[in-house]
């Protein structure tokens, strides 16, 4: 199967291969839900919106119905459903806040309730791709406005006045002519009897009247629980009679269990049982790898029991996977022509005729997510019903996969979504929930499957590994006239389909073919690379290696031509315009080009803003240096300036980071700042330390001692975040992921400014030491 030739095959696959061909109506019928209950709004009409998004293209689309998302109790408490997963972005607060804003609810009288996995009822729930605000700002406003309208209609009827004379204001409806008022609670029963207004006729609030949106003064709903230990994550679920399980999985992707001896494990106090877990052959999407489970009365006993197991594995076809050898393969592939994905002008000829050619070969290794909460899930399977409690980014997908794995109807599966102790894409894959379901079924008891940190590193879905080779041709005046970028990396699609050697449209669309520079001759190519382990989404995905390569090359061109990095960057971005790359079916994060074009005016603006606020060009002490980078991803625009300090032993510290983001219309600037602050730390972690290596098919890192992440003592001292105020009606765009990609190249460019050393291979590791 060639994904490149058939990009449409991957539409909707983006995070799952789940292309829905069934109409929503037939799904509703199938589950016995009456048509009137869920308003059909799978693809929103143009009339209803100032802009169109890709939300309707996601599996199960969007549901806009106040009766699904909002309830008002007689005491006035408004309960709003949060249907996306909370992994730290603040989405469990932000989306309900949008509803509260439009319905004129007082936030202090709002409770947020987490939706279980049910996409027919709630619409798409895949919390990934930095999509939540982008896809749900307008639907949540419509839901809130519908609820407000129903409350107003109920009040108008009660008073016998036209609905146009009443107005909802801060949790009550008022009739100003007579001075009468009714609280939301007093109107709840009558409002529920009102018909749901049509989306097209809804009156949305004027943004100048917003009390919450865009203000950033509302803390996250879980703040108190988090600081008191009451917040419930996947690992914190406890059921009566629940068993604790830890699983020994094949150490090599595609490996199989040959034999095992449970005797020593069964002697460990607290261990109750040792049993085999079904595994699926590689690749099989998110299905469990199989192995041997130790069941115990607590997790400590289960871990100790697993340590005592005697296991014999057949490592299978990936038993020779070796990172050092694989890197050489990728480098060699990058030096030969590959599948051409974007061609403008004639880059080959222009490079031959260039006065100067600058070549950069950039390497970014495999990375692991290491969310602080390792994968964990609780399952209770009884007969042909299953209930799951898990920290999953894909509640709907998890429900489907549990049903398929247990061969029971999807309607018999309940997926309770807990808080996620970090996600970063790892928890878009529900393998751990499937393991719990299989074990519970076999045990006939509720069971919790806990992954250890070692399991997380050894059996995860690693970020791809890539070589990005860029050749830039300059004419005599120093102008860039040719750009050839070859990207070689195993694709995430390899986790779904055997024999995948090319990257999927959603990967090549992340900073390769959408490269925004104004250059006459461009060639973007993708030589082949086969995967030898499970590759998965990692926060910001292919944008990490692409931004690293492209923005490092900008620094290299500046360096070769003696120009300022920022000036060079702006020159390459060129005139303010809409970039329309010559690419067949250009993937644009699932969004229509009309709403989310590649707009170099916005790209320039974040560069200029960060340069101004970040005091680009300021004098820095000896051993310090400034670097800059910009990248558009998840249809947002982000530029970062990093100041580094490098002492005479090569120790690297980061005194200051400045980042400017243009994410269009936004909801909660305070959470945007926290995401960007965190992205700088994740960017620094991967640049400084991040590397998963394989030898004999096995991951060599075990825990936080050999897979290091940034700690407080080497985190940036100050991170400043500047948010571009949106022009009216600028559609909202991504926030969770876009902060990561520009960090590493800005850092690397700063290191060059400080030391004259150009780093092309991540992580930095010991490269700066004498």
């Amino acid at each position, binding site marked *: 199967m060639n994904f490149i030739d058939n990009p449409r095959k991957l539409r909707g696959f983006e995070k799952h291969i789940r292309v829905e061909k069934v109409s929503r109506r037939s799904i509703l019928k199938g589950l016995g839900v009456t048509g009137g209950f869920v308003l059909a709004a799978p693809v929103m009409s143009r009339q209803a919106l100032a802009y169109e998004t890709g939300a309707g293209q996601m599996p199960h689309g969007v549901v806009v119905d106040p009766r699904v998302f909002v309830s008002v109790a007689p005491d006035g408490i408004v309960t709003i459903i949060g249907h996306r997963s909370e992994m730290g*972005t*603040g989405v469990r607060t932000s989306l309900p806040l949008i509803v509260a804003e439009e319905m004129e609810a007082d936030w202090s009288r709002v409770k947020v309730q987490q939706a279980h996995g049910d996409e027919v009822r709630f619409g798409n729930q895949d919390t990934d791709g930095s999509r939540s605000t982008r896809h749900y700002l307008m639907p949540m406003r419509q839901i809130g406005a519908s609820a407000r309208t129903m409350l107003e209609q109920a009040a108008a009827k009660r008073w016998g006045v036209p609905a146009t004379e009443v107005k909802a204001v801060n949790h009550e409806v008022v009739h100003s002519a007579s001075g009468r008022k009714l609280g939301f609670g007093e109107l709840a029963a009558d409002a529920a009897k009102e018909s749901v207004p049509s989306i097209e006729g809804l009156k949305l609030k004027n943004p100048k009247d917003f009390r919450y949106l865009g203000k950033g003064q509302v803390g996250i709903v*879980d703040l108190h629980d988090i600081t008191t230990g009451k917040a419930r994550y996947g*690992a914190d679920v406890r059921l009566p009679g629940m068993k604790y399980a830890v699983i020994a999985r094949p150490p090599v992707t595609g490996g199989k269990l040959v034999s095992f001896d449970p005797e020593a494990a069964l002697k460990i106090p607290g261990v109750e049982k040792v049993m085999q877990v079904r595994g699926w052959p590689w690749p099989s999407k998110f299905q469990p790898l199989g192995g041997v489970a130790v069941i115990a009365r607590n997790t400590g*006993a289960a871990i100790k029991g697993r340590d005592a197991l005697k296991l014999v594995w057949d490592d299978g076809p990936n038993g020779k996977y070796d990172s050092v050898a694989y890197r050489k393969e990728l480098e060699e592939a990058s030096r030969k022509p590959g599948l051409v994905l974007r061609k403008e002008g004639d880059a080959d000829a222009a490079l031959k005729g260039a006065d100067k050619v600058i070549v950069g070969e950039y390497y970014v290794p495999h990375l692991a997510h290491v*969310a*602080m909460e390792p994968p964990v899930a609780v399952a209770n399977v009884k007969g042909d019903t299953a209930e799951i409690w898990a920290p999953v980014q894909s509640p709907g997908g998890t429900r489907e996969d549990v049903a398929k794995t247990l061969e029971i109807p999807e309607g018999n599966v309940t997926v309770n979504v807990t808080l996620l102790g970090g996600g970063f894409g790892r928890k878009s894959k529900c393998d751990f929930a499937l393991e719990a379901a299989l074990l519970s079924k076999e045990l006939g008891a509720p069971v919790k499957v806990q992954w250890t940190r070692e399991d997380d590193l050894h059996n995860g879905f690693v970020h791809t590994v890539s070589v990005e080779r860029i050749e830039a041709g300059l004419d005599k005046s120093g102008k860039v006239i040719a750009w050839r970028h070859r990207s070689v990396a195993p694709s995430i699609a390899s986790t779904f389909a055997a024999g995948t050697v090319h990257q999927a449209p959603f990967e090549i669309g992340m900073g390769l073919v959408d490269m925004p520079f104004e250059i006459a001759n461009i060639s973007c190519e993708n030589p082949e690379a086969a995967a030898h382990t499970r590759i998965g989404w990692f926060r910001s995905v292919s944008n990490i290696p692409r931004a690293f390569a492209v923005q490092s090359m900008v620094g290299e061109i500046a360096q070769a031509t003696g120009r300022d990095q920022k000036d060079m960057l702006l020159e390459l971005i060129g005139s303010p315009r809409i970039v329309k790359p010559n690419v067949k079916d250009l993937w644009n994060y699932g969004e229509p080009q009309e709403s989310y074009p590649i707009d170099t005016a916005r790209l320039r603006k974040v560069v200029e803003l960060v340069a101004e606020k970040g005091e680009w060009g300021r004098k820095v002490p000896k051993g310090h240096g400034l670097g800059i980078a910009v990248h558009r991803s998840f249809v947002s625009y982000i530029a970062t300036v990093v100041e580094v300090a490098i002492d005479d032993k090569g120790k690297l510290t980061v005194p200051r980071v400045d980042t400017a983001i243009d994410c269009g219309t936004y909801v909660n600037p305070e959470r945007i700042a926290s995401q960007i602050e965190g992205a700088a730390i994740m960017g620094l972690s991967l640049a400084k330390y991040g590397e998963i290596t394989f030898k004999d098919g096995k991951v060599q890192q075990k825990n*936080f001692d050999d897979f290091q992440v940034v700690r407080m003592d080497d985190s940036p001292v100050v991170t400043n975040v500047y948010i571009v105020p949106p022009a009216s009606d600028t559609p909202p765009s991504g926030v969770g992921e876009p902060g990561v990609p520009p960090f590493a190249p800005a850092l690397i460019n700063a290191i060059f400014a400080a030391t004259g050393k150009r780093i092309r291979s991540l992580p930095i590791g010991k490269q700066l030491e004498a």
Partner: protein
Amino acid sequence: MIKVKINGQEQSWDGDPDLPLLWFLRDEAGLTGTKYGCGQALCGACTVIVDKQAVRACITSINDVAGREVTTIEGLHPNGDHPVQKAWRQVNVPQCGFCQAGQIMQAAALLMDNPKPSHDQIREAMSGNICRCGCYQRIENAVHLASTGV
């Protein structure tokens, strides 16, 4: 029979004396505020206070704390209003929040030992606690705020 006082309450255990305190707390005593992050004292998510000292519960056996007093996040303050907890909320520290119980316990222990730490002392004392979301700047500011009066 091992006896240990947890958040002021006497608890007993007659199982494996080597059981890490972390799993006793979480799975046997039902105190799930203390988190598992690495099992090797590398991340600090399981930090509790034993007799005024921050301790990693994942490598401390239940036997090690026999007869001693253990405070977990649930017992730090009856209403959750310890100055560190209040500061955490004022600064809006958490993102996912999973590491924060350990961070808060580490910070509380630091302030018992050093009520007015400098920024450098905060950064050093807190560097055993990993936050993958990257809330460090806010953690540092919250500890500082807690030390200067919330």
